[in-house]
């Protein structure tokens, strides 16, 4: 099992992070299934600082979604510890520390777009006047003004996903967890939403954890890329992006971008070589 222990270089790299929002120490998660135990995460050490944009990339089954769900306290780790904002993940969830964007928009079809954005606010007991103000602000932020009265099934897939991002932003959590939010959308819509997401991140200065299986998407968006590999799910490489904060779409053709993408691809390949 020695291969699961991360290289010392990475651990050292992480300890430099200031204002940690997420701290995972020797995190492990084993699911008990009918076919015996499945190790979804093993020995994950990771620190994410305030204001970072961190992507988790890896082949399916590498535990990147599971890791995000552990941060969100939707799964309980079976070993190690997970701290969010310095509290346990459960306490952080109860304190509504984060907004979560799922693979599908998961909007409630019986609520209008503004009704859907209001949902977390209603649950958290925000006053009506404050709700209206925040709905307007967050729908502005995702460029959905004018669609307040529409029902989710009257909008395109890209607009639905933008509404679900608005819903996650509505209650002003500093942390945004996104689980392959654009995975089901076509390339053009995806490019557009990636651009908008970067803009939104720059404006709100939130910490974003972003799960994806697209290398260009990960490199384009992130300040740091966490490469993971399966069986058992573990972190194999952490890549600091050297790209500037201002990123037009055509930055993806620069040699710098391609160099980072190549390193991510190498990391993914290295992870695979552990198989068999």
């Amino acid at each position, binding site marked *: 099992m020695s291969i699961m222990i991360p290289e010392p270089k990475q651990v050292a790299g992480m300890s430099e992070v200031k204002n940690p929002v997420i701290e995972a120490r020797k995190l492990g998660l084993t699911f008990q299934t009918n076919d015996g135990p499945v190790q979804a995460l093993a020995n994950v050490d990771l620190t994410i600082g305030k204001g970072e944009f961190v992507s988790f990339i890896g082949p399916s089954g590498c535990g990147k979604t599971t890791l995000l769900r552990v941060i969100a306290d939707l799964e309980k780790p079976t070993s190690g510890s997970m701290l969010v904002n310095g509290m346990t993940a459960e306490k952080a969830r*109860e304190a509504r520390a984060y907004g979560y964007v*799922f693979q599908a928009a998961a909007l409630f079809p*019986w609520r209008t777009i503004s009704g859907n954005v209001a*949902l977390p606010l209603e649950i958290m007991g925000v006053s009506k006047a404050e709700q209206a103000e925040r709905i307007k602000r967050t729908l502005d932020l995702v460029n959905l003004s004018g669609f307040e009265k529409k029902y989710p*099934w009257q909008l395109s897939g890209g607009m639905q996903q933008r509404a679900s991002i608005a819903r996650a932003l509505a209650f002003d959590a500093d942390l945004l967890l996104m689980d392959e939010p654009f995975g089901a959308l076509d390339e053009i819509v995806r490019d557009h939403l990636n651009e908008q997401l970067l803009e939104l991140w720059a404006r709100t200065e939130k910490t974003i954890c972003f799960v994806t299986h697209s290398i260009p998407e990960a490199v384009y968006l992130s300040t740091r890329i966490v490469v993971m590999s399966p069986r058992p799910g573990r972190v194999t490489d952490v890549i600091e992006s050297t790209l500037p904060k201002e990123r037009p779409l055509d930055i993806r053709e620069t040699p710098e971008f391609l160099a980072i993408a190549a390193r991510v691809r190498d990391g993914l390949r290295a992870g695979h070589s552990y198989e068999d």
Partner: protein
Amino acid sequence: MSRLKPSWQAVLAILFCLAAIASGSIAAADPAGVYPYEATKGLILALIAGAALVSMFRIPAMLEVLVLFIGAHVAAWLLIRGIAGVEGTARAPFYLLIAAAWLLAWRCVAVLSSIRTGSKQVSTALRLIVPTIFGAWILIIWEAVTRGAGIPFILLPPPSSIGVRIVNSLPILAADVNQTIFKAVLFGYLIGCGTGFLVAILADRVPFMRRGLLPIGNMVSALPIIGIAPIMVMWFGFDWQSKAAVVIIMTFFPMLVNTVTGLAASGHMERDLMRTYASDYWQTLFKLRLPAAAPFIFNALKINSTLALIGAIVAEFFGTPVVGMGFRISTEVGRMNIDMVWAEIAVAALAGSIFYGVVALIERAATFWHPSVRGG
């Protein structure tokens, strides 16, 4: 382009008219020598054949519909009026002419259903007219066959005498409806569905209840109502309370089972979403799980609307004060007043349809978001 557009219904109707002329007298010899319809035979033939011929020309659809409608229905009316007083004497031409008139009505409905219109009112009217003509012809053929063949009144009364009976017995029917529907059915339905719903939520909250109650629920819902109705009468007396008890038992379990299924209908992702908001049990229930369960709950409400009516009527067979739809059916059968039995059946069918329709309308308004309602 030809000026003619023959339809098979019109051609067949004309052939039937020719066959009717060839097969001679429209009815068997009448001892009194009175043939009220022989006098109108020519008129009937002219109406049917004329309407059929006109319909084969290229004329505006609305004009064609009008000609066919008048031809078919006036002819049918003349035929049925003609047989009055000499029931059971009809011969082949009578049935041939009724069949020809029916074919014209068929053609009329076919033309109506093919009309495409942009106007909302017109298309709504068309949606109502087509089934109305269809239903009317079931009654017309029923009337013509029972009168033409002289079917004994006890076996099957013609719809006209059922209609006369309904009109003449309105106070009795109203009292029966009041007793059975407004007391037993409504009370039992509200209590049965209400408790079914509440127990479903209880079962959802307490897993032990779910595991214990649902298998028993399935068993009880298989209980024959005939078996429990007399027991309910012994427990709760002859009046409507015992019928309401039967209705409660019948409606409770469909509601329970459907609500429990519906509460499990919301997706994992949506429930995870509520969890990320640290939403408590009741918030998740009211904001996510009950709205997602609404289609299932309305399904139970619709099933129960017909079950409740059946339950109350059958329960009245086992003892009741001298009023109620089930009581009337069982006693009037004994007194050979079959038209009264049919009158009660017609009223029950009407009441059941209205009940179901109201529930279905509320469902459409409440689950407007569901793909089966919004159509996509």
